[in-house]
């Protein structure tokens, strides 16, 4: 964890009656883009709501810039939320809508209009900004929501499923925008169910399940911490049977299976494996065309951590 954490929670819990939505969550979120991941009912939305001041924690503390979030005007002036659901005054135009919400931050009408126009330009809505929102497509509505969130240049931006309903070009544009905001030193927390989208935005993730943060940090580092779970390596070699025979002799290798286009090695020590595989191939004159790790992607980590009930090595 960096020392310049923008968002910090300490033993944060939130109950809805008898149901516990967040359970003793301690985390830090730094500058840059952070992906908030978790299955339905994991507590993602509750965490987002607590961090955006919508919910008061039942227990523990949640802070942004070192200040408590709940009922804190200073914090509220420096954060922004792009909610998952549509949240519009349908009769208003996007320009009026964004201007109105910027004005709630205390800006004058002239300043607000200038900022609204700039934000709508960023999300490519300038041409339609004077049309009522009820005439917008789903993608346009999504972009209008993002515009209202970025218009006042927040230091911390919370985006709940920001790519929902966007076309491929719009999606790419929003991803680039998120990356650009992150690169400018802002904190961007992106909640999404679509793992490859999060992967395209960041490798820094926060995995949450059953109200607890079960992992946070770099996705590859998290994968390495799951040392009790066998790790798979895929090898596309010109002599797969010979190579498989060589590999099974190693103590860390649990199994070797053949795929249509290569061999799949399951190992308990991927780091050692990555070291001796090239050496073995070289010594036995075997050509390796491809060496990949299907486990080093977010989906695999997500699956391991949420489905296997993994509790050690990372998280809170």
């Amino acid at each position, binding site marked *: 964890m960096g020392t310049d954490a923008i968002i910090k929670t300490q033993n944060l819990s939130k109950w809805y009656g008898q149901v516990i939505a967040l359970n003793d969550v301690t985390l830090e979120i730094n500058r840059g883009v952070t992906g908030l991941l978790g299955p339905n009912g994991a507590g993602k939305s509750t965490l987002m709501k607590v961090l955006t001041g919508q919910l008061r924690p039942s227990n523990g503390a949640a802070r942004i810039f070192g200040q408590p979030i709940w009922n804190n*005007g200073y914090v509220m002036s420096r954060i922004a939320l792009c909610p998952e659901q549509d*949240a519009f005054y349908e009769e208003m135009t996007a320009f009026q809508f964004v201007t109105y919400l910027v004005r709630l931050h205390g800006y004058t009408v002239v300043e607000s209009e200038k900022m609204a126009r700039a934000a709508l330009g960023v999300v490519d809505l300038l041409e339609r900004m004077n049309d009522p929102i009820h005439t917008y497509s789903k993608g346009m509505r999504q972009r209008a929501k993002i515009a209202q969130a970025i218009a006042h240049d927040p230091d911390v931006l919370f985006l709940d499923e920001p790519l929902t309903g966007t076309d491929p070009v719009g999606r790419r544009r929003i991803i680039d925008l998120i990356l650009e905001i992150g690169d400018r030193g802002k904190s961007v927390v992106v909640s999404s169910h679509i793992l490859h989208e999060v992967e395209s935005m960041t490798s820094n993730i926060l995995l949450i399940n059953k109200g607890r943060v079960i992992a946070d940090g770099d996705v590859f580092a998290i994968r390495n911490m799951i040392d009790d779970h066998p790790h798979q390596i895929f090898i596309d070699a010109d002599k797969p049977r010979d190579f498989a025979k060589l590999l099974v002799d190693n103590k860390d290798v649990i199994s070797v299976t053949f795929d249509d286009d290569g061999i799949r090695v399951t190992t308990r020590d991927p780091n050692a494996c990555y070291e001796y595989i090239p050496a073995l191939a070289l010594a036995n004159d075997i050509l390796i065309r491809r060496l990949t790790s299907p486990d080093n992607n977010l989906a695999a980590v997500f699956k391991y951590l949420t489905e296997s009930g993994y509790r050690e090595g990372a998280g809170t």
Partner: protein
Amino acid sequence: MAIRDQGYTRYEGDLTAGSPTWWVVASNGFSLQWAYVRSKLLLFPILFVFLLFVFATFGERVLTNYFMSGQPAAQPDEISGFYEFAFGYVQIWILALYFTASGCGVIAEDLRFKTIQLYFSKPITKTDYIVGKFMSLVMFGGLVTVLPTILVGGIRMMIFAPSESFGSVALKVGGVVAYDIVLLCLFSLIVMALSALTSRTGYVVLAWAGFMLIPSLVSTIVDLVRKGEEWPELLSVAGTMGLALQSLVDFKGIPQPGQLAPAPPPDYMMWAPWLIIVALGSAAVGVLYWRTSKLEGIA
């Protein structure tokens, strides 16, 4: 893909440069209610009703001149207050209708369309939000209450300006303005309280219509049973407001058949309507406080 320069300049000063936040919420709320076509369409028949009162003023003046010709000018106490009472009483139902058409979603639609969560992440207080919404209703309702009273009352005062009744007329018009403010505040609070209870605007409309009509129906039935008694009027909001209006415009009432002057009302009729108004307003404030304290996040 290139991202164009956003040209942002982050605001570092106090959050006082723009308008007060409650005013931003109020003006936006007013614009939203006014944006409905029905709000504009309904204004035409409502304005027509008020136009009738303008004609009535002319008629009243012409008749007064006719009957008083050759006699001393009308004395101030000859203005009975019936005109102002009728004008104010009509406003009860006009305002109720106008709020039914466009005001009932004032908070319910924020709940329904989730826009309430957009306020959550803004630096506004619960008080800003509630006061803003309240003021939006007051401004909206003012279109069919205070504004017509000032216009029609102004015309009436101009017509009566040459006569000695001018002072009396001016006082009564002032009484109607005061009454309008009470009426607006009370109805706005009640509509807001109902609107805060549900995310379905339709339910708010039903509840508001029920709140206005059912007690009036009960009041009418009881009034028919207990002939000659005035207390059944206190059973309905319209009746209560009517009694408050009577005291503000100094209207003694209409004489019963066979009587030359109306019977003086019992003492409790002077304070009971005001007590009911305060009680209803307080109950609405209580509901709003309770409900908004449940709406976590309007920080």
